[in-house]
C-alpha cells in the first residue's frame, strides 16, 4: 500500500500540519489517486515542520517545511510523474541532509513516534505491540518482571532517577487487598514536551508499560494523570484505552489470564506542584494538590492510603522494549549508573529545535553541536539549562560533561524530566534565574513557609538586581536564603526551586556582580541597565526611530543624525528594533 504520512503532533499542527493534511485529502480525492493518507505523531524534527513522509514501494521520502502551496507540486511531480523534488526533501535514499541529527540518536522510547498512526492499535500491534504483555502473562512471574527491570538499570525518567525495579519491588512486597498504579503525565516544566510527544505519538506503548507494571506489583486499578493543557494527548489516550477494552487487553481476565486491570484518565487542572507524586495523588482524590510528608512513601501508603506505584510516561514507554529485547541490551547502553537512553526536548537558541533521544553518556557538546547543529545565527554558546525550574545552568566550558544522573547532579543541576534549553550570549543569567524563580514562586502551593515566603524574598532580590538597585551583601543573602529554602521544604518543588539561582551564582557570579557594582547587564538584556546610543556615522536620518519612540525621546530632522534625550528615554528598545541600519547600539 502506498502511504502518505503527515506529522500531526501539537507542534506539527501549530505549524499548519492540519491544513496540509486537508489539502492532500482534497487533491487526492479530486485527482482520484489511490493513496492511504494517515496522520502520525511527532517525528522529532520540529525545526522542519510540517513534515510529510511518502512511503512508495518500500522507499521512503521525507519532505520538510511543507505548506499548502507545496502540496500540488508534490502530488503532480512526485506522485504522478515519479520525479522527487530534491530541494524540498530532507531524507530519502539519495538525499540526507540530517545525518547528524539522526545518527547520534537511539530510539527506544520514541521507537514508534512518527512512524505509526497513533490512533490505530493495529499499527502498534504490527510493530510488536502488546507482545511484551503477552510474554509476561504467559511465562513471567511478577518477581521475574521486577528482576528484569532491576537488572536493566532503568531509573525514573521523571527527574528523580529512582531505580524503577526497586520501586516496583517495594510496592510488590506490601500486602494489601487493593493496590494502584499511576502514570504521571503532568509534564509541567516550561520548555519540556517529551511526555506529550510520546502520548501523542505512541500512546499504546505507555499503556503496555503500565500493564506490565500493574502485573508486577499486583495492582488492578490504574490512573493516568495528564495535564489538561494537552488536549490532543488526552484524546489519543482515550482512543487507545477504548481500543484496548475492545480487544480484551484491559478489563477482566486480560488475554485469558487471571490478571485484571482498569485504567482511567484524570485530567489535571493546572498546578505545577501536582507533578510531585504526593500532590498528584491528593489531586486525584479531588483535593487541593498539596504534598504530604514522606515517609510513608506512596509504595506503602499512596492513593486512598493504599500501596501505589507512580512512574513517569517515559519510564513506562521503556518497559515493553526491555521485556522484548532483554535487560542486557538496555543495560549495554549508557554509563555505569545511568543506563539506556534519554529523551530531551531541545529548544532555545539552537538551530535544530526538536525532540531527540540520545544514549546516556553522550556529552553536552555532542547534543548541542552534532544533534542540534550549533547555535542560531552562529552566536556564542553560553550555557545549557537542564531540568527546568528544578534544574540549573551548566556553562559551555563544561560541554564535555556526560549525560548521567550523578554527573549532572554534581554540577548543581538535575537531570530532570528532559527539558534542555540552549542559551547564547544574549541571555542574561540573572534574568534567566529570575525567570525560573518567578515560575516556582507562583507555583508554590504555600504549605511550607520557606518555599512560600523564602522564594518570594529571593525573587525580590533578583528583581532589584536586574533593575539596577542591587546592593552589597545581596548575593550572600541570596545564597543563605537558597540553602534554607532547600532544606526546609517538604517536596521537590521547594527543595529544588533555588537550583537555577545557585547554579548561575556558581558559574556566572561575575555577571551578578557586574549588575550590582557596575550597574550594567553584560548581555544587554535587563532593560533598566541598558543605554541606547545612536552611532553618528551610521545614522542616515530616516526618522524610523523617531516614529517608533513612544515617549518622544528621539529627535532630529530628516537626513540629519538623530539624538536621544536621556531624560525622556524609557529604555523600551523600540528604536533599536525599528532601525534598519544598525545605527543604534546597546551599551
Amino acid at each position, binding site marked *: 500500500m502506498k502511504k502518505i504520512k503527515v506529522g500531526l503532533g*501539537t*507542534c506539527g*499542527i*501549530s*505549524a499548519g500540519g492540519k491544513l496540509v493534511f486537508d489539502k492532500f485529502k482534497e487533491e487526492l480525492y479530486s485527482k482520484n489517486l489511490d493513496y492511504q493518507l494517515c496522520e502520525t505523531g511527532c517525528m522529532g524534527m*520540529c*525545526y522542519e*515542520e510540517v513534515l510529510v513522509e511518502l512511503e512508495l514501494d518500500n522507499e521512503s521520502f521525507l519532505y520538510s517545511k511543507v505548506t499548502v502551496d507545496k502540496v500540488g507540486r508534490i502530488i503532480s511531480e512526485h506522485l504522478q510523474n515519479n520525479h522527487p523534488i530534491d530541494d524540498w526533501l530532507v531524507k530519502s535514499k539519495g538525499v540526507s541532509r540530517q545525518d547528524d541529527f539522526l545518527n547520534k540518536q537511539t530510539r527506544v522510547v520514541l521507537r514508534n513516534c512518527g512512524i505509526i498512526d497513533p490512533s490505530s492499535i493495529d499499527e502498534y500491534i504490527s510493530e510488536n505491540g502488546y507482545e511484551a504483555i503477552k510474554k509476561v502473562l504467559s511465562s513471567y512471574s511478577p518477581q521475574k518482571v521486577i528482576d528484569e527491570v532491576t537488572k536493566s538499570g532503568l531509573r525514573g525518567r521523571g527527574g528523580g532517577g529512582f531505580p524503577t525495579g526497586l520501586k516496583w519491588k517495594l510496592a510488590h512486597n506490601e500486602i494489601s487487598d487493593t493496590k494502584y498504579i499511576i502514570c504521571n503525565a503532568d509534564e*509541567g*516544566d*516550561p*520548555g*519540556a*514536551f517529551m511526555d*506529550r510527544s510520546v502520548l501523542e505519538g505512541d500512546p499504546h506503548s505507555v499503556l503496555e508499560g503500565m500493564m506490565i507494571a500493574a502485573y508486577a506489583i499486583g495492582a488492578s486499578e490504574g490512573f493516568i494523570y495528564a495535564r*489538561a*493543557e*494537552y488536549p490532543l494527548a488526552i484524546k489519543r489516550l482515550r482512543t487507545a484505552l477504548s481500543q484496548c477494552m475492545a480487544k480484551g487487553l484491559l478489563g477482566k481476565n486480560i488475554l485469558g489470564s487471571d490478571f485484571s486491570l482498569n485504567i482511567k484518565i*484524570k*485530567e*489535571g*487542572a*493546572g*498546578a*505545577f506542584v501536582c507533578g510531585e507524586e504526593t500532590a498528584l495523588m491528593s*489531586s*486525584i*482524590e*479531588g*483535593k*487541593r*494538590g498539596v504534598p504530604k510528608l514522606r515517609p510513608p512513601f506512596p509504595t506503602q501508603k499512596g492513593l*486512598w492510603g493504599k500501596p501505589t506505584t507512580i512512574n513517569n510516561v517515559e519510564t513506562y514507554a521503556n518497559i515493553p522494549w526491555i521485556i522484548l529485547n532483554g535487560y542486557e541490551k538496555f543495560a549495554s547502553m549508557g554509563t555505569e549508573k545511568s543506563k539506556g537512553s534519554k529523551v530531551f*526536548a531541545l*529548544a*532555545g*537558541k539552537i538551530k535544530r*529545535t*526538536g525532540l531527540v533521544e540520545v544514549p546516556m553518556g553522550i556529552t553536552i557538546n555532542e547534543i548541542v553541536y552534532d544533534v542540534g547543529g550549533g547555535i542560531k545565527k552562529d552566536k556564542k554558546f553560553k550555557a545549557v*539549562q537542564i531540568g*527546568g525550574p528544578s534544574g540549573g545552568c551548566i556553562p559551555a566550558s563544561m560541554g564535555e560533561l556526560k549525560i548521567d544522573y550523578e554527573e549532572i547532579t554534581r554540577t548543581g543541576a538535575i537531570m530532570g524530566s528532559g*527539558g534542555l*534549553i540552549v*542559551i547564547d550570549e544574549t*541571555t542574561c543569567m540573572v534574568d*534567566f534565574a529570575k*525567570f*525560573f524563580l518567578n*515560575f516556582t514562586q507562583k507555583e508554590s*502551593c504555600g504549605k511550607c513557609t520557606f518555599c512560600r515566603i523564602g522564594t518570594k524574598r529571593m525573587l525580590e532580590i533578583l528583581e532589584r538586581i536586574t533593575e539596577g538597585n542591587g546592593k552589597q551583601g545581596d548575593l550572600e543573602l541570596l545564597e543563605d536564603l537558597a540553602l534554607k529554602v532547600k532544606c526546609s521544604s517538604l517536596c521537590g518543588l521547594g527543595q529544588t526551586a533555588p537550583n537555577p539561582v545557585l547554579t548561575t551564582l556558581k558559574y556566572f557570579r561575575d555577571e551578578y556582580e557586574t549588575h550590582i557594582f557596575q550597574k550594567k547587564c553584560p548581555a544587554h538584556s535587563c532593560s533598566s541597565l541598558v543605554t541606547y546610543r545612536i552611532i553618528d556615522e551610521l545614522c542616515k536620518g530616516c526618522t524610523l526611530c523617531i516614529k517608533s519612540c513612544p515617549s518622544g525621546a528621539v529627535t532630529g530632522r530628516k537626513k540629519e543624525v538623530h539624538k536621544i534625550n536621556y531624560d525622556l528615554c524609557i529604555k*523600551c*528598545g523600540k528604536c533599536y*528594533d525599528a532601525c534598519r541600519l544598525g545605527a543604534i547600539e546597546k551599551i
Partner: protein
Amino acid sequence: MPQEADLFTRSESQDILNFKIDLLSRHHKSDSLIPLLQSAQDSYGYIPEKIIYYISELVGIPPAEIYGVITFYAQFRLKPLGKNIIKICQGTACHVNGSKNVLSALQDELGISIGETTEEGIFSLESVACLGCCSLAPVMMINNETFGNLTSEKIKLTLRKFRT
C-alpha cells in the same frame, strides 16, 4: 445560605453535569469533584457560584472546601471570560526568544494586563507556562489557533483579524 432563587433547580444542573454524573464513584465520592468542576466550566466558560452549592450536595464536600479547590488550580475561573482567549506562552524557549517584548506589545495593544478582559469583552489575556511548540517561539494561542515567531508587528495584524 444562598436564596432558593439563586440556585439552579436540580434538573437544570443535572442536565449540565449529566454526562459526568457517572463519574461519581461509589467508594470515593470526592474524586469526582475536579471532573465535575471541569464539566461545569466547559458548559459555562466559568464556574458560577450557584453550581458550587449543587456540586457540594452531590459529592458531600462543603462549599468552602470546594472554593478552596477552585482557587488552588489555575484552570478554574470564577468570572466569565471574553469572546477570544489569548494565551501567551511564557515558557523557557519563548523567554529566551523575547516573549517579554511580545507580552508588552500585546498589553499595549489591548490595554489590559494578564488575567484581565477588555471592556467590550472581546479579548481575555492569560499567560501559560508552556504551550509546547518551542520551535516556533515566541508563541501565543488565540482560542485554539497557535501563532508563532511573533513580533510586535505580527501581533497587531493578528489581533485585527479577531476584532472584526
